[in-house]
């Protein structure tokens, strides 16, 4: 009698576990379907339109547009530029990602004070971010282009090495590293599958689908935001917008995505 009851209980537990596993794979499939359904009407296009207008609009104390901004392929060349970033820029004498390059251009071309250019980079209900819109448009001009992040200049190689170190560095109150969540297949946060960024496919799939419109936030988010929020979730000190650390980590992740076709702005839950 007693043994029978235990066996029945064990069978019930097994059934629950099996259901759990099934629900998990179904959830991933359903989320993929949900994304496909939304892709057609991706509100990121609204950011792209606003970003293109901002790029061409004369702004700042010098009242000039960003159309002379050199994103690495020459002044004003936008097509495909994002796939070569981050890279070393001689005029700034540092490695820059798209966001830090945009800040640099706002300061050097338009005469906007640096603090103002960096203010409120992530949009919310009360304010719209110029950076997010510009990034949306500029990255959209690289859709379909293969990632080709350079490692020629010593500072580019240094940024990659520092970025790799940050990726594996454990710290904070939870003793977390980026690699804690992104170093193995099949990890997830709640129902979200996490990419394994130590594999080529994982790094490529993740990097080429940012920036993205986050449906849950109603905002378009850039890669700087992605890293900033990962740091928050790890309970790390805040990752300062366009800091050397953020650019180094971006260099590491972008370079690992080399060879994959860029496919963003995307749409995510």
């Amino acid at each position, binding site marked *: 009698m007693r043994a029978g009851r235990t066996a029945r209980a064990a069978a019930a537990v097994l059934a629950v576990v099996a259901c759990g596993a099934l629900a998990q794979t179904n959830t991933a499939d359903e989320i993929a379907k949900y994304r496909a359904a939304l892709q*057609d*009407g*991706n*509100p990121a*296009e*609204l950011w792209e*339109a*606003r970003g293109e207008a901002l790029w061409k609009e004369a702004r700042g104390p010098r009242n000039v547009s960003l159309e002379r901004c050199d994103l690495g392929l020459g002044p004003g060349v936008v097509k495909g530029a994002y796939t070569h970033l981050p890279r070393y820029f001689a005029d700034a004498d540092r490695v820059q990602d798209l966001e830090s390059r945009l800040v640099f251009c706002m300061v050097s071309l338009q005469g906007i004070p640096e603090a103002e250019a960096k203010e409120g980079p992530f949009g919310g*209900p009360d304010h719209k971010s110029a950076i997010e819109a510009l990034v949306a448009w500029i990255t959209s001009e690289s859709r379909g282009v293969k990632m080709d992040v350079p490692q020629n200049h010593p500072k580019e190689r240094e940024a990659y090495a520092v970025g790799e170190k940050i990726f594996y560095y454990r710290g904070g109150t939870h003793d977390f590293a980026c690699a804690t969540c992104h170093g193995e297949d099949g990890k997830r946060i709640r129902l979200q599958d996490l990419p394994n960024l130590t594999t080529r496919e994982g790094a490529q799939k993740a990097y080429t689908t940012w920036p993205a419109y986050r*449906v849950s936030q*109603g905002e378009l988010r850039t890669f700087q935001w992605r890293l900033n929020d990962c740091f928050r979730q790890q309970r790390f000190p805040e990752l300062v917008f366009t800091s050397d650390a953020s650019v180094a980590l971006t260099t590491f992740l972008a370079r690992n995505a080399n060879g994959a076709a860029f496919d963003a702005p995307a749409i995510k839950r």
Partner: protein
Amino acid sequence: MADPMKIRATVAGDSTEVKVLMSHEMETGQRKDSKGNVVPAWFIQTVTATWNGKPVLSAQWGTAIAKNPFLAFKFKGGAKGDKIQVTWVDNKGDKRTDETVIA
């Protein structure tokens, strides 16, 4: 003023499909800000669409529509080069009209 809409219209066979992305906060009036004050309702109330000036869609919307709404609809007729015009009006009286030609 509100940001422009993105409108695409394509003819297939005897009908035309129109896809519209609108930029709007669509506040329900049920949310509170960080200070605990209610964020006032602010949403698109009416949407109309015309084909060469002739109404093909008229809709009344409420707070259940998502932020930055996406609207897709089909109507019978339409030819390449015809004009499609979409207008929304929100509960604050703000409005926006944009147009495109059928591709």
